[in-house]
């Protein structure tokens, strides 16, 4: 039931938006074609402005991962993680989640394939994946798009938020599943 609603919601959202917004604009006497083109132009500038920030993060992360530093951190954390009730397989996900959205989704997909979506590891991975968003990506892109470099308290607060999300996810997964 819920799944049906969700899947039809995701299937219909785009067509409905494409149909309804220009219709509403036409009814209100807006030059819809002109407005669309004008807005689309901003989209191009936005993507180009984000590029250098994205590149900085991508390069740092990939250098850290490819050289084996990430694996080293994961391995050295494994005694702590097992004490906290986190299966070792899930540790890379926790580390990658704040850094890379597509990377984290990739790790989650890999864990689900290996352990099965209905296993404890699988459910824990799914919950961790959804418990917070891609902190570093969002900080870089959002502030980068307006050329703000002094971000005040945002990084530590955002990371503490991630920690709260992970801790809650781990606690309730151990309790419920």
């Amino acid at each position: 039931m819920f799944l049906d609603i969700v899947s039809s919601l995701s299937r219909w959202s785009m067509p409905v938006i494409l149909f309804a917004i220009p219709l509403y604009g036409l009814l209100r006497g807006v030059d819809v074609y002109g407005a669309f083109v004008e807005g689309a132009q901003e989209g191009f500038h936005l993507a180009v402005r984000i590029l250098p920030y994205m590149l900085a993060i991508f390069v740092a992360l990939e250098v850290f991962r490819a050289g084996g530093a990430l694996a080293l951190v994961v391995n050295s954390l494994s005694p702590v993680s097992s004490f906290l009730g986190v299966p070792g397989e899930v540790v890379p996900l926790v580390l990658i989640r704040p850094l890379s959205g597509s990377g984290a989704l990739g790790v989650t997909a890999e864990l689900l394939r290996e352990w099965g979506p209905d296993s404890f590891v699988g459910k824990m991975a799914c919950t961790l994946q959804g418990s917070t968003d891609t902190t570093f990506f969002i900080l870089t892109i959002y502030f980068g798009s307006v050329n703000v470099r002094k971000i005040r308290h945002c990084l530590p607060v955002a990371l503490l938020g991630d920690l709260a999300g992970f801790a809650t996810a781990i606690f309730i997964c151990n309790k419920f599943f």
Partner: protein
Amino acid sequence: MLNVIWYLLIAGGVFVASSRGQVDVVTKAALSSANQAVETALSLVGVMCLWLGLLKIAERAGLVASLAKILRPLARKVFPSIPKNHPALGNIVMNIAANLVGMGSAATPLGLLAMKELQQLNDTPDTASDAMCTLVLLNTSGLTLIPASVIALRAGLGSSDPTATVGVTLVASAAATFCVVVLDALFRRRC
């Protein structure tokens, strides 16, 4: 802070790789990920243009303003520094709504548009304003009603109950959001 972490990632990567005698990996990783960043940013161009085009129509038609009007009482509480009826409020509201239903690709252009409008209200263009911090933090904590991509992934891999983690995800992301909202209010006066 981002300064230090960014450099630590690079320095850590170079250090570990060279201590294992795999220095070449660093070169390859740096060059290929730089290309990957360009590809990813360019792949955003299409989606961004499409959304921002549609949003421009919505804005001209007064849709953003009326949505903002409905949710203004709540948004004004969370963003007290934004003037009444400012278009940024409408975009912020839609950004959060898109995040709640798991439409991340729609949320990003809306959030960036809101940032641009907040920057116009900002007296110190190189430093984040209070409203910017709150908006960004709400996005990083990722409050989610429907984790659409996870549900799709679980269903695709043959789960007997693809929505099993929806409830716990909501609780966990609510905890993260609660945490950032409280800490943001505490810290924004001090730094």
